[in-house]
């Protein structure tokens, strides 16, 4: 994906962002871009002016997945129509055309993994509709943070996987844009004369160096053999069992379905869920096949680095580092994986 030919590179004029926002607004396209809120957090939010857009940020607090798999969404609504009769209404229609402008390459790369799941044995209708109607334009990462480890999981600060186009910002001056898909090409067209094919010989900037911290192949070899291991008890002892790591993970996609109703009206909602929660695998019988935090912690690592590769030939982790950054007790996926690697290589 990274060896896009140079003919697909464009030079963007310094005011390209204003031009893009103007053109997209005229076409009725909603633009989601990084915005710093009153509390100092950066998140993807609707914007209409370039002054609202944060460009000097590490990553959004809530990952890009929320654009395609909202933390809560109405799947259907139902209404009591009479005695013994219920009218079922479709949920809120997925949004119209949208452009995400300024997510990070790691978050975009996570979409490749989500696509695998949501188009697997069943094509997930709301997810697919949102994916089809959304163009993803990433901003190449020039300055990775202390928790970043994308290069350890097959990514790169400049990865184009999952993106329709990648923009290489250089301060507030002219930028470079790499077209990846047809949607990306359509986005470039919307920029009009603010985007010109880059001069012959223009090369993409080198990505910043990022130390590789473990080898996912070796991790997988160990996981294949160690469903039962004392390591799981040790690393799970301090885990609080909250869902912060799952909910802030750009690839975690498990959900719960709940009905919320009043006397005559109800909604069936899909909400984010987490394998760290004690009720995640609780059966109606009362039996829980993952009865303690040890088995739940193991599941999170196994799902990302064994079951997902077994099924889709890719790990379910993009190395964004949010799990390590936001864990209340400093539980750290990198440290667990590094430790597994050291067990693999005694």
């Amino acid at each position, binding site marked *: 994906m990274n060896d896009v030919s140079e003919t697909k590179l464009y030079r963007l004029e310094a005011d390209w962002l204003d031009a893009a926002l103007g053109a997209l607004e005229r076409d009725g396209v909603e633009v989601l871009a990084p915005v710093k809120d009153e509390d100092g957090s950066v998140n993807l939010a609707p914007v209409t002016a370039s002054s609202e857009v944060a460009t000097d940020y590490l990553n959004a607090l809530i990952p890009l997945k929320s654009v395609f798999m909202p933390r809560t969404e109405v799947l259907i609504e139902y209404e009591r129509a009479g005695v013994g009769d219920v009218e079922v209404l479709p949920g809120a229609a997925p949004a119209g055309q949208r452009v995400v402008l300024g997510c990070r390459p790691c978050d975009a790369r996570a979409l490749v993994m989500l696509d695998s799941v949501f188009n697997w044995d069943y094509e997930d209708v709301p997810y697919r509709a949102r994916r089809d109607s959304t163009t993803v334009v990433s901003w190449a990462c020039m300055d990775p943070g202390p928790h970043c480890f994308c290069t350890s999981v097959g990514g790169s600060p400049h990865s184009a996987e999952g993106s329709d186009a990648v923009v290489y910002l250089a301060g507030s001056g002219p930028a470079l844009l790499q077209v990846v898909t047809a949607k990306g090409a359509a986005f470039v067209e919307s920029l009009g004369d603010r985007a010109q094919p880059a001069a012959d010989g223009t090369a993409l900037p080198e990505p910043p160096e990022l130390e590789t911290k473990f080898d996912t192949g070796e991790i997988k070899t160990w996981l294949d053999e160690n469903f039962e291991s004392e390591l799981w008890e040790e690393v799970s002892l*301090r885990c*609080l069992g909250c869902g912060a790591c799952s*909910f802030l993970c750009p690839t975690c996609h498990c959900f719960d379905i709940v009905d919320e109703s009043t006397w005559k009206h109800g909604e069936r909602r899909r909400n*984010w869920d987490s394998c760290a929660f004690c009720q995640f695998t609780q059966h109606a019988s009362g039996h829980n096949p993952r009865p303690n935090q040890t088995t739940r912690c193991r599941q999170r690592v196994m799902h990302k680095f064994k079951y997902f590769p077994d099924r889709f030939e890719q790990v379910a982790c993009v190395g964004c580092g949010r799990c390590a950054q936001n864990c*209340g007790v*400093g539980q750290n996926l990198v440290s667990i994986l590094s430790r597994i690697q050291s067990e693999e290589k005694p």
Partner: protein
Amino acid sequence: MHRTGENRMNATPVEESLREAAAGAIADGTVGVVIGYGHEAGSDVATPLFARTPEQARGLVFDATCVGNLAIYLPKPEVRALGRTGLVVKGCDLRAVNVLLREHVIEREDVFLIGVRCAGVCEPPLHKCTVCPVHDPSGCDVTLGDSVEQPTADASRANALVAEMEAKSIEERWEFWKRQMTKCVRCYACRQVCPLCYCKRCIVEKTTPQWVETSPHLRGNLAWNVVRAFHLTGRCVGCGECERVCPVDIPLGLLNQKMAGLMEQWFDFQSGLAPDEQAPFTTWDPNDPEEGIL
């Protein structure tokens, strides 16, 4: 947040005495495990360290990054399975232990308390540290560290953040809380990190019927956070862990501080100052002047 940097090779005097006390308690069988603080690369705050051998106790640290309240681990069955628990506590953490004792979640003999005198953690110190009434934890099995000066209590300072909020109009406050509560993703980090949220089954996990909506919409989020604040009223010791671990930075401490202020105002009560204190909501007294429920 204060950053740890690399592991320090040289232990401070308090760390030396801490390691010695912990290693001794493990070696002579007083405890099966000592839970204290350690440093781990990649974490900005000290991480919980479970020392089960005297050698592992050599990794214990005590510095400005030791923010967490380790009392959270005391009720957990998987921790109890390791044997009697040794616990490193600051004054603020001891208050949570006192409530666990008061509520008979643990008994005093279940735990070996290693108190460390503490004038405050983080740089600049956390709000809770600037108003902390327990710099010197008393009633521990061992207490370590140089004596620290206990500033006189300053109620206006303790309530400063609440007072700032109360100065706003009710419309402004509603807008503020709506915005904050909308951010909640229902990860329950606030509950899971709270040493006093030890219910085996939380009300949001009771599904027949579902008392509190689990969807992270404003209605469900308000219900959850209000239930949580109410259940901690008269119990919360203000350790601030809920606010610290909230991944979306909801100022939960404000709710707790408001409730703590009311408890002090109406009942002259601060939670967790002693294990045998008479807590207003859980103490039956035939001389209680309140006849409202009779």
